[in-house]
C-alpha cells in the first residue's frame, strides 16, 4: 500500500527531478528504483526505495529519507540527501581537498574563488565522497550539517582551521 494516514506517494515528482537535473546534473533515471513520498499537510518530500510500502493501520513517523524540506524553487535538497546521491552530480560540484573537507565538517567556512560562485552546491572530496549540501556566498563555502552531528564532534573542535581553497 502506498498511502496511510500520514504519508502518501507523490503523484508527480517532476519538479524535484527537474531541479536535481538542472542544478546538480543528476539524471532522473538515477531515481527509477525509488518513490517520492510526502507527509500529508506538510511541505517536506521524502525519497524511499521502490519496495517500501506502508499499512493503513501503522502510525508512520517517517518514510525513507527527507529529500526536500520545501518544494523548489525555494526549497533545496537536504544535506543527508546530497550526501547519499551527490556522487551522481555533474554540475555545481565543489571538489574540496582533504584539509578543507575536515574544516567544513567541523563547521568552518572556507574561501571559495572557483566556479560555481554562488548558491547551493554538492560538496565532494576524493576520499570521503559527497559530504553534503554546501552553500557559496560572498566567496565563502559552508557545509550544511545537522546540529546534532556537529555537537557530537564536541567543543574540542571549536577552534576551527580556516584554510583557503586552492
Amino acid at each position, binding site marked *: 500500500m502506498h498511502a496511510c494516514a500520514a504519508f502518501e506517494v507523490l503523484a508527480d515528482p517532476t519538479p524535484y527531478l527537474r531541479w536535481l537535473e538542472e542544478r546538480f546534473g543528476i539524471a532522473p533515471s538515477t531515481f527509477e528504483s525509488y518513490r517520492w513520498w510526502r507527509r500529508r499537510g506538510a511541505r517536506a518530500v521524502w*525519497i524511499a526505495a521502490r519496495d517500501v510500502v506502508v*499499512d493503513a493501520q501503522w502510525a508512520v513517523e517517517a518514510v525513507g529519507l527527507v529529500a526536500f524540506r520545501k518544494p523548489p524553487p525555494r526549497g533545496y535538497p537536504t544535506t543527508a540527501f546530497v550526501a547519499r546521491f551527490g556522487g551522481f552530480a555533474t554540475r555545481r560540484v565543489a571538489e574540496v581537498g582533504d584539509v578543507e573537507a575536515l574544516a567544513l565538517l567541523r563547521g568552518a567556512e572556507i574561501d571559495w574563488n572557483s566556479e560555481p560562485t554562488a548558491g547551493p552546491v554538492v560538496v565532494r572530496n576524493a576520499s570521503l565522497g559527497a559530504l553534503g549540501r554546501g552553500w557559496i556566498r560572498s566567496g565563502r563555502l559552508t557545509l550544511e550539517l545537522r546540529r546534532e552531528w556537529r555537537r557530537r564532534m564536541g567543543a574540542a573542535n571549536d577552534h576551527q582551521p580556516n584554510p583557503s581553497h586552492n
Partner: protein
Amino acid sequence: MDLLSSTGPAPRRPAGPTQAPRAAPALHRYAAVAGDAQAFFDAAASPLPRVVWPNTLRPRAAETLARVVGARCAGGEPLSWWPGAWRLPPDSEPGRWPEFATGLYHCQEEASLLAVWALDPQPGERVLDLCAAPGGKTALCAVRMGDRGLVIANDSVLSRLVALGDTLARLGLTSVVVTRCDGRSFPAPASPFDRVLVDAPCSCEGNSRKQGGRLPLCSPAKRDGLVRIQRALLCRALELVRPGGVVVYSTCTYAPEENEAVVAHAVASTPGVRIEHLAGPRGLRTSGGLVRWGEAHWPTWMEHAVRLWPHRSDTGGFFLARLRRV
C-alpha cells in the same frame, strides 16, 4: 596531502581516575552459571571496546574506514567475524571523528551486531525491527540488505525515535519506514514479514561495562513487568512472520527469567515454532543457552540459544535465540 595524517588524531575527553573493578551486586546471582565468577565480575566492570562498521552504501566505504581507523586510533583491529568492521579500544571516540558526520560508518556495540548476524536479512525482504530505537540494528539490517526491500523500524516511545531518525538520515537509508506502535499489538500488514527482530526492553545487566561496572538492582516486581512485556512482544512477532520466516529474540541481560524462560514460553504457546541451532560466528566465543536456573528447567534445545559473557568474548552481556515458524 593525505586526508587523515594531515590533521592528527581527534581530541579526546580526559580520562577519569582509574578505579579498581568491583562486582555490581546485581551480578552476584549469576556466579554459578558464569563459569569463572571472578573473571566474570572483573570483565563486567571493565570498559567496553567499541566497534565501527562501514556504510557500504557509500563507495569504497570499507577501504576508507580502514584508513580512518588507522590514522585516528592506535590499537584498532579488524573484527574477524564481520567484514569491514573494526574493534577499537574503549577510550576511542569514533562518534566524535568528523568522518562520522558523513555517514561513512556507524558505531555500535559488538554484541548488537550478533543480533543482525543471526537475523541474516536479505536484499528485497520485508523485515520488522519491533523495538528499534536507537536504531543501530535497524540501520545495520538496511545496509546489509543493500538498502533494497523494506525495514520497519518500530518503537513505542516518540522521544526514542529522534535518535533513530538521526542515525537513518546520517547513513542515508531509503528502505526504512519508522512507525510508532505498541509492539505487543503491532498491526499485521497484508503480507507477513520475512524476518522479525525482537530486541526486547530488559533489565540491561549486560550493559554494566558502559557504566563503569555500576548497575542498579532490578527488583522482582520490575523484572516481572519486563517479562510480561517480553513474552507479549515475542508472541506477537511470531504471529507477524510468514511461515518459514525467522524471528530473533535478543536482550542485553543475563537474567534467565528474561531470556530462556521467555523463549520457552513463546515456543510452548505458539504452534509450529522451533528454535534453530546457532553456533555463533567464527572468531566470537559464545555459550549456549541455559537448561537449568534454580528450580527452573528447560528442554535441551534451549542450548541452541546463544549467550555472550564479557569474560569469554570481551563484549557486553547478551542473549539471543533464533526461532523459525514452520
